[in-house]
């Protein structure tokens, strides 16, 4: 066995990590430009977009396989998830420029932190070593703790920063605790070493996995680890929320899938399965019911996100190749609908420093037809109405559940979808069936806003009507992790 070291790496290793290197460099460049050439600010967004685009291109071009001694993955799964993450970052960046300009906060730090956070998420999904995953997770977290509090003069923003930091640190502690136990049992921090621990895991391994689920449960705002999400979303700049509410959640679920499939190839043990199913049911029900009572659109979307993670976790309970593929499709659908919804919210509210009551959207269907139309489409998609991406996401998840005999979960899932319609329609009602309450309409729509909203709308309809290519790609990608069917 050859000795391994993080400090020895080949050209291949370097090529495979090029996507992350680009991001790291771009982030550093942005901070430097901010400090020494602040007049270039208007190019920051374009620069960030280029970096993210280049990073995704490098990832797609990278040779498939593992590098860094089997610690960094470049499989079809990582590439597809990388595209998903890149797309989330692009939507967030497109919205960020006009948003920050309106708030008078267009600074390099925002873009740099977003890009570094994106780097962390990217590393999380590609890491085949729990330490790499953890480093990615912490990079993401640190960047977004700061992003949450970036509006320094706004109390809600500081509150968001502190809350996210405290709960995030708490969650990270769970994660690292779980990693330590796994390391203790397997003697290695590598994920493929976990295979020796299954398929009948002893209590310590189960405890470790439970800790990981709790740790990542915080990151994906799964009930009962969700309490931070509404407050943080409310105080964080909306474009950053568009990213935070989508990409890190997708990455976290992929990591959980990686670890769980390494330990249990043939399916989860009953106790673990029951536990995760309980979390799924709790998250769906709690998220949807509490969302009904929300008056602030960002809090409403936060609770809707909690509920959506419940649907996703159903696919974790079901376990298997089709279920993993369903998760991927679900997250693509969630990206276009949820990031689209936040993008529309960013474009529809004039004053960033105040709360975002749903009531302020009254009559915007006529005053801002494009942004309001996209918001309505995103909400219908989140509600899972057919011919939208959201329906297809739910379709594949529930199909996997029914196929494997989890009827109760599927039924609880659809009943929850019904409940969710109550609050999504409340927003649509405001948009189209009420007269405006404020004289001042929404801010003028910038070109990049239009682009972001248009991309999300096209994505929603395209995935909703022609889901087959994505499903095939997702199934192939899932095969990288779970070669056997189903």
């Amino acid at each position, binding site marked *: 066995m050859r000795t391994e070291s993080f400090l020895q790496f080949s050209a291949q290793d370097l090529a495979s990590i090029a996507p992350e290197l680009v991001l790291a460099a771009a982030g550093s460049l942005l901070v430097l430009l901010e400090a020494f050439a602040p007049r270039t600010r208007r190019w920051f967004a374009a620069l960030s977009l280029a970096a993210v685009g280049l990073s995704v291109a490098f990832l797609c071009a990278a040779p498939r396989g593992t590098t860094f001694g089997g610690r960094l993955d470049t499989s079809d799964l990582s590439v597809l998830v990388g595209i998903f993450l890149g797309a989330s970052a692009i939507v967030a960046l497109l919205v960020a420029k006009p948003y920050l300009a309106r708030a008078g906060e267009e600074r390099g730090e925002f873009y740099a932190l977003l890009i570094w956070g994106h780097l962390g998420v990217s590393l999380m999904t590609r890491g085949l070593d729990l330490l790499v995953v953890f480093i990615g997770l912490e990079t993401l977290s640190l960047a977004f703790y700061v992003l949450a509090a970036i509006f320094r003069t706004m109390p809600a923003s500081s509150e968001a920063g502190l809350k996210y930091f405290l709960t995030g640190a708490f969650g990270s502690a769970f994660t690292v605790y779980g990693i330590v136990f796994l390391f203790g049992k397997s003697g290695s921090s590598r994920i493929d070493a976990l295979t020796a621990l299954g398929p009948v895991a002893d209590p310590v391994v189960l405890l470790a996995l439970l800790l990981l689920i709790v740790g990542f449960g915080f990151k994906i705002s799964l009930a009962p680890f969700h309490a931070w999400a509404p407050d943080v979303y409310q105080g964080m700049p909306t474009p950053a929320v568009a990213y935070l509410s989508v990409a890190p959640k997708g990455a976290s679920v992929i990591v959980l899938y990686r670890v769980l499939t390494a330990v249990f190839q043939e399916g989860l043990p009953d106790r673990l399965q029951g536990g995760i199913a309980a979390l799924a049911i709790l998250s769906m029900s709690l998220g949807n019911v509490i969302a009904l009572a929300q008056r602030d659109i960002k809090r409403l979307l936060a609770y809707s996100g909690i509920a959506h993670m419940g649907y996703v976790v159903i696919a974790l309970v079901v376990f298997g190749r089709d279920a993993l593929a369903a998760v991927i499709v679900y997250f693509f659908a969630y990206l276009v609908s949820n990031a689209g919804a936040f993008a529309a919210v960013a474009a529809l509210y004039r004053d960033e420093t105040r709360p975002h009551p749903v009531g302020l959207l009254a009559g915007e269907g*006529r005053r801002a037809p494009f942004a309001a139309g996209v918001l309505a489409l995103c909400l*219908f998609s989140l509600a899972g*109405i*057919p*011919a939208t991406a959201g*329906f297809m996401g739910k*379709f594949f998840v*529930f*199909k996997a559940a*029914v*196929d494997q005999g989890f*009827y109760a979960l*599927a*039924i609880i899932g*659809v*009943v929850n*979808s*019904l409940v969710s*319609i*109550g609050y999504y*329609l409340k927003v649509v*009602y405001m948009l*189209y*069936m009420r007269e405006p309450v404020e004289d001042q309409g929404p801010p003028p729509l910038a070109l990049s806003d239009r682009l972001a909203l248009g991309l999300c709308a096209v994505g929603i309809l395209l995935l909703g009507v022609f*889901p*087959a290519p994505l*499903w*095939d790609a997702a*199934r192939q990608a899932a095969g990288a992790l779970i070669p056997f069917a189903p």
Partner: protein
Amino acid sequence: MDALLGDFVLTVLVFLPAAGSLLVLLTPEARPRVAISVALAVATVEMLLSFTLWHRFDPKTPAFQFLESSEWIPALGISYTVGVDGLSLVLLLLTTVLTPVALLFSVTHVTRSARGFAVAFLMLETGVIGTLAALDLALFYVFWEVMLIPMYFIIGIWGGARRIYAAMKFFLFTMAGSLLMFVAILYLAARHRAVTGVWSFLLTDLYGSSPGGGTEMVLFLAFALAFAIKVPVFPLHTWLPDAHTEAPTAGSIILAGVLLKLGVYGYLRFGIPLFPEAARAAAPWLGVLGVIGVVYGAMVAFAQKDMKRLVAYSSVSHLGLVVIGIGAFTTTALSGAILQMVNHGLSTGALFLLVGVLYERRHTREIGAYGGIAGVVPVTTALFLVATLSSIGLPGLNGFVGEFLILLGTWTSAHRWWAVAAATGVILSAVYMLSLVQRVFWNPLENEENRKIPDIRASELVGAAVLVALMLWIGVHPNPLLERIRPSVETVRGFLEKAPAQAASAREARP
């Protein structure tokens, strides 16, 4: 035109309105009439196109015609498969006729956000035609749900005073039913895969794949609930009076004329063929609910003070009659039930239209506010009277044929007493409808405001006249419809009579 469309006539019919809605978006915002006129033109082309379907349709075969099939999500065996038989053909034509009628009425009466209205209406038509043509369960479900959104907007934006409540109730009720059906569809497909090894959502593949016994009953109930809410079958009807009353006139015409029928259609197309055993077991209950619906709907209708609400409750009663016909299962009763759906679409469509005519002039739907206006608006009165007589089943008009067939078919079935109860419904309908006519058009003219009501306008008249002409045509010459319906009826009966094990032989219809 046939040569031009080749074998894609159904696809064109399904997507033409949706494509037309893009055309509507090009019209200027400030000219509401232009937007709706464009939509009207699209809907008229659609109607003419659907007439070619009627002519090319072969009434002798029970098989699906104008079949088209292509892959949609091949990994799961989900296909874009469309086709029509007699059952879907007549409902499809009803839709393509009622949509331009409703739009024609709206040209002069919808002024607020007319573009949105026109787009919603055309999308609704696409949804309805797609639902009627889809032969793949996943495709069917997509269209079935897609119908909800435009209707939600039509009620919620252009509706009456309590439109928000009505729109929400409509949406939640319908969605509640269909979500369980969604799980049941997934179950059927998963079971088909477990048995045959391949995924398929194709209706004809899934025939006979029901597991039988208690599971079949659960699946059947999941489907039946979705359809029963749509019809609506008592006691799931409470959304209907609100939605119909609050919807704008054009919305009520489509809602009552077409959307309700899709519940019955779904039951006949999917409920019975997929779960024949359970459908058989449930038939007596269905008939009883139909009887309750007939009598209850009629009694509540009689007590209404609002014209539109009265017509809405009359729908509960009339659809109850259709439900009885389906519960009876005889060829005659089933044919009558399907024909009666068309009849109800025409007569209720006309009634809602004419109530709309009065409402647009007096801005009240209260029956007490009218009285004695027969001399003031003679043409409206005449048309209203014909629609009323059609609705209560006067011989010579279409309603008589349908009701008579249902009563006859039910009398010869195992449940003779249903026919008795259904017949009281027919009598009751005469009571509340004629009393409505009496109170609105005849009684002494006491309110001075009623003297100045202008009579029906040309654009309103054309639509109403078309419907009245169709009532007469079906009334005296129902055979072209009946002979097209007959093979579908025999197919449905075939499913019921065969033991579930043999139902698999029905796969001959497979495209």
